[in-house]
């Protein structure tokens, strides 16, 4: 009977109070709500406001809400009867002590609730903290994960409550809330609690939408520099050199063929972050295979290229990085490969411009030309028609030129099986296509630097790259 009454109270609070406040007053928008699992789970989020718990409860279907409990700090919510009534009666919270008493496990009730099949809302930061700052997550979430093996943890990022009702303010101001739900996942139960907490924090932060620019001086977006070459090993070497050079003057991120690298004054670091193609994106590779994309972007390589371009797009909103260096550029590579394989004659400037517009999503490929493009340039067709990604135009393009003989010799020496199209004649034509693509981009305002393969280790070549990157328009501050 008590449980039934509590459920009715919770539902009434949700329908008559939480829903109007969150949806009508505060303007709650939820992204990817469907990712929330049907079974019990632990929802974790950043915490800046008293609105956070009602928002996270409202993500669940109405009839499930009586079985969702926010975890609240006993020292705060049990300090007076109004807070206790709100926390326990209306929000159905489980209160825990933030400081453990000797011989007592403060998380015991939380773990028991999860084992009983309840869902919990948990704020691993432990308190509301400073508005807009995601503090380090405490180890408690790690202890819970370790105690309940196979527990599904749902990361959620809340943007907006910290402006609507931050700590220390008594009156909320309606300004809009965005809640972004992440993919539920489990964490290794054998990891240390602090490590698990750090992993959970990364997953929550990964969902953060680009913050709206605050009033005052603003940092410019990072400068994008792409390194292209017909021979992969040379491209990789030039990419690393450019990373090292740019990293020595400002924080730099490198989107490598397989890994994401960081560079700073101390050098280039591989922190083991691979370019992932998760299962849900594998269909792109399947499409590429079905449409027989060839050359550099065969099958899953195409899916990886799409993934890298999406990361590139996301990095544009990054303000803590000054340079983003790409090992290759989807835009330039696809333009060059289309030029070399698309027809018997090389493309003229107008046609190259058209392909660039298709790749950048400025125009749609006309329906009448779908067959033509699907046959000759399936990569371009897939990107454009399915709107998979809009590859960014680099600010600076570094083109490493190499003679066809030298490139062929390097490919043979690399030990990889030589593809049927990899002949001296083809590589020579591909090199020309890269030049034509670079020429077309130059007309569009991209600064192009051509380096001979023998020069990539010379400091003056990289000095030219540095000079081009530091005078690129994006470096200028907006005010």
């Amino acid at each position, binding site marked *: 009977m008590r449980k039934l009454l509590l459920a009715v109270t919770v539902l009434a609070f949700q329908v008559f109070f939480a829903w109007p406040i969150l949806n009508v007053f505060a303007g709650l928008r939820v992204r990817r709500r469907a990712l929330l699992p049907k079974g019990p789970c632990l929802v974790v989020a950043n915490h800046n406001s008293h609105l956070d718990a009602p928002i996270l409860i409202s993500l669940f279907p109405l009839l499930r809400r009586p079985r969702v409990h926010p975890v609240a700090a006993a020292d705060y919510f049990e300090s007076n009867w109004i807070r206790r009534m709100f926390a326990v009666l209306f929000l159905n919270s489980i209160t825990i002590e933030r400081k453990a008493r000797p011989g007592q496990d403060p998380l015991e009730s939380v773990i028991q609730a999860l084992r009983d099949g309840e869902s919990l809302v948990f704020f691993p930061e432990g308190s509301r903290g400073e508005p807009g700052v995601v503090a380090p997550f405490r180890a408690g979430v790690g202890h819970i994960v370790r105690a309940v093996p196979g527990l599904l943890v749902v990361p959620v990022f809340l943007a907006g409550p910290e402006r609507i009702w931050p700590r220390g303010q008594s009156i909320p101001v309606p*300004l809009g809330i965005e809640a972004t739900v992440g993919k539920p996942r489990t964490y290794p139960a054998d990891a240390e609690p602090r490590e698990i907490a750090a992993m959970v924090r990364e997953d929550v932060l990964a969902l953060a939408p680009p913050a709206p*620019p605050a009033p005052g001086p603003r940092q410019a977006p990072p400068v994008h520099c792409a390194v292209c070459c017909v021979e992969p090993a040379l491209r990789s070497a030039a990419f690393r050199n450019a990373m090292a050079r740019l990293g020595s003057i400002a924080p730099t991120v490198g989107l490598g063929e397989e890994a994401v690298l960081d560079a700073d004054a101390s050098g280039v670091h591989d922190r083991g972050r691979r370019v992932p193609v998760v299962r849900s994106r594998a269909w792109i590779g399947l499409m590429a295979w079905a449409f027989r994309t060839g050359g550099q972007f065969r099958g899953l390589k195409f899916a990886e290229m799409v993934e890298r371009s999406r990361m590139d797009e996301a990095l544009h909103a990054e303000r803590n990085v000054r340079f983003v260096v790409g090992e290759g550029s989807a835009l330039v590579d696809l333009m060059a490969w289309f030029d070399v394989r698309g027809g018997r004659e090389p493309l003229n400037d107008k046609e190259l411009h058209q392909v660039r517009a298709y790749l950048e999503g400025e125009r749609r490929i006309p329906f009448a030309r779908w067959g033509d493009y699907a046959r000759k340039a399936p990569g371009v067709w897939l990107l454009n028609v399915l709107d998979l990604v809009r590859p960014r135009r680099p600010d600076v393009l570094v083109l490493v030129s190499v003679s066809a003989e030298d490139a062929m010799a390097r490919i043979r020496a690399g030990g990889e099986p030589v593809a049927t199209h990899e002949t001296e004649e083809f590589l020579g034509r591909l090199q020309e296509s890269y030049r034509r693509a670079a020429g077309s981009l130059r007309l569009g305002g991209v600064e192009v630097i051509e380096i001979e393969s023998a020069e990539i280790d010379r400091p003056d070549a990289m000095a030219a790259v540095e000079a081009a990157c530091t005078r690129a328009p994006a470096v200028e501050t907006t005010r």
Partner: protein
Amino acid sequence: MRYTVPPIDLALALALLMAAPFAFLAGRRGGRFRGMPGWVGFWVFFGGMLVALSRAKPEYSFPLLAVFMGYGLRRYFSLAPVRPPDRWAILSMYAAVPVALVPAYQGSYALFAGLFTVGVVLFLPGLLAISSRRAGLLDSMGRVLLGAFLFLVCAPHLGMLVHRPVGRLELFAILVVIAELPQRLAGRPRPGFELLWPAAGMAVAAVASVLIGAWVAPWGGATRIQGAVAGLLVAVGVAVGALVSEAVAHDLELRASIVIGRGAFLDRCVPAVFAAPLFYHYFELVS
């Protein structure tokens, strides 16, 4: 009881029906046209709201317009955040929504102008200046004043049009749709971009608005000449509104945002809101 749909409402529905195929075909091309179907969707809602404002009793249309103004303010300030201490200024703006609407519904423009002068010119800057020690005062002030100008000064003019002959609001809606469509198809004027196509779009928009305005004006309680001039003014107002909207979106980095749909509401409603005072004052002048 038999109800006949007024011809001006039919004309508005026809304008939207005519705009829809253009918008959907353009939307298929992608790029900057991706939002065109959404624009038609917005106008189905917004046009409906204007019809309701025009036809409903004041006690019903007043809260409707207040909700629109409050929603617009919320969307605007969620995209253009101000300094944390300036939240009191925003709160006072929400509180000012009914204050701005009362004189608008009473038809007292003098009172409205007085409140505007005191509220927006004196009160808001004073409130913002209290926390002048925080960086970004002028930037924050600009954001707050633009929000106030759009939704506390321009939008109430829609309420004032309620007092004009029935059909005036629908006439305004038709003119805005007709003026916006060619400008959106040709590309809206953006600071720093080529101006040939946007200029052509504006010219077509002006001609279309003048012709359509002259045609439908008698159903909206105006003469054909008045309709033509109002069409021209609305086309200019919409173009200026679009320019402001694009520049603000550029400054707030909404164009570069990876979150699709950010700022779509403002992009769609700002030109209409901008054109409202021009339309209202023209008819005030000629009547």
